[in-house]
């Protein structure tokens, strides 16, 4: 049963991401990205990371993907084009990413990873994650919140400048 669910989530992750890379319609690519993010959230849950799975759904699907779809909708007029490079560039990209894929797969299969006990029992992670974020990782946590604030203000500033420049 677990095997079946695992395979379903893997297919849910892999197949739409091919569509993201190859689709000639950018709206289709954006909605396939939605399915990919759901698949990855499922894989997180299968890995015992319940909190990360929920955060993936809330932030990636509820935040980032909505922003991307807004961006797609606001920058299209008339025909919806994906705008890919011409054939030589495409072959170059395909060869380069195939080489990287081969190297990564070789490393993933051949390396002897220091495995732990994989039948470790799964416990809810949110309380322990909160302890870590406000304990050992307090400084990175505050830096990340500062980064989010700066990104927010910076994004507003960039857009406002361009709107004022139009007047």
């Amino acid at each position, binding site marked *: 049963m677990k095997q079946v669910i695992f*395979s379903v989530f*893997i297919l849910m992750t*892999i197949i739409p*991401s091919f569509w*993201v*890379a190859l689709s000639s319609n*950018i709206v289709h690519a*954006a909605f396939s*990205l939605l399915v*990919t993010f759901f698949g990855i959230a499922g*894989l*997180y849950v299968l*890995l*015992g*990371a319940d909190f*990360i799975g929920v*955060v*993936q759904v809330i*932030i*990636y699907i509820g935040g*980032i993907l909505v*922003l*991307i779809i807004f*961006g797609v909708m606001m920058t299209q007029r008339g025909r919806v084009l994906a*705008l*890919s*490079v011409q054939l030589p*560039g*495409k072959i170059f*990209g*395909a060869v*380069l*990413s195939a080489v*990287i*894929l081969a190297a*990564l*797969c070789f490393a*993933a299969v051949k390396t002897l*990873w*220091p*495995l*732990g*006990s*994989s039948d*470790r029992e799964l416990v809810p*992670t949110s309380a*322990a994650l909160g302890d*870590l*974020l406000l304990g050992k990782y307090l400084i990175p946590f505050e830096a990340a919140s500062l*980064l989010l604030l*700066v*990104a*927010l203000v910076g*994004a507003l500033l*960039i*857009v406002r*400048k*361009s*709107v004022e420049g*139009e007047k």
Partner: protein
Amino acid sequence: MPYTLTSFLLVSSLLFCLGIFTVLTRRNAIGILMGIELVLNAAGLNFVAFSRFGSEFQSGNPLNGQVFTLFVIAIAAAEVAVALAIVLSLYSRLKTIDVAEFKDLQR
């Protein structure tokens, strides 16, 4: 596929390479952003897979990997906000999001 570390690593390598391919071949600025999101997701999946299967003697607390994934997600949110602001600003100026047209980024 068996439920092992290697299959998670293979899935995330494939996601990573599809993201790289998307970044390299799209000329649509938002399409490039989607490729970057695929790459970041592959990295996060790797972190969580190692936090599940890795040895607890080497990593200390097995939840360390999940904390890194949280930071990756936060940084992805910041990155996509700024990138979309830049794309919309360029669009209002040049009326296109084709990155081949962005040769001259000066005022």
